[in-house]
């Protein structure tokens, strides 16, 4: 990691790299499924990139699921039968 400069206020002597790496570590900790290896500058960039891919993947899934749901809605009864919260919650617990 780049060396700290003078002994003046901590925030002003931390390089941007250090700030980013510190914060990316935080992100990594919150998203353990991404890249649990030792922190470094290269790792920080990788985490940012993987996060972007992951977000895009999830958003695409939302798109696909919306399309699928739209097609399925044609086939079901608009009355509350099929919007039963409990049975959906039960299916959720199985995933």
């Amino acid at each position, binding site marked *: 990691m780049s060396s700290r400069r003078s002994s003046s206020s901590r925030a002003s002597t931390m390089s941007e790299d250090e*700030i980013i790496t510190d914060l990316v570590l935080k992100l990594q900790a919150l998203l353990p499924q991404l890249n649990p290896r030792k922190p470094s500058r290269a790792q920080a960039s990788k985490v940012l990139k993987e*996060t972007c891919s992951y977000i895009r993947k999830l958003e695409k899934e939302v798109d696909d699921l919306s399309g699928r749901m739209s097609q399925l809605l*044609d086939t079901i009864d608009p009355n509350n039968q099929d919007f039963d919260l409990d049975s959906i919650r039960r299916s959720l617990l199985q995933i």
Partner: protein
Amino acid sequence: MSATTEQLERNFTHRFLTSLRRINSPDSKTTTTHAAGLVIRRRSLRIKRAAYSSMARAAGSHRAWTRALLSRARSQRRRQQHDVHPNYIPPAQRRKSSVKRAAAAGREMGRAGKLRGLVPGGSRMEMGQLLEETAHYVQCLAVQVRVMQAVADHFSSSSSM
């Protein structure tokens, strides 16, 4: 799953199903003059928007991304009501937001530029906030996908009965 994630999931599921019921209600079904494919595509868009709005509301307004998302949805709805294209930004607004975005992005663009474009409100955040909001946004998206999957599976199994 943590207690808060469970609560989020329940809250989102409830809101989302309420929206679906409204989208699927008989009076909202379009007339038969529209081709079936168009109806399905339009409804798919409504479902998608309902999913994001339901999640933003379930997640709560103390998050910057939820506020940004809901505010974007509001202005899209307003523009649609006036027959304006949802992605249209009036000239005055366009100028202000692009200056803000450029200034913020100019500081950190190199490493987090793409991320700023993906997280709602990301272009206005400084780095620390961006990463926190990102983590929360991703967690909520994952819940959203999981619930939508369960709902779709449920519909598909009830229709095959």
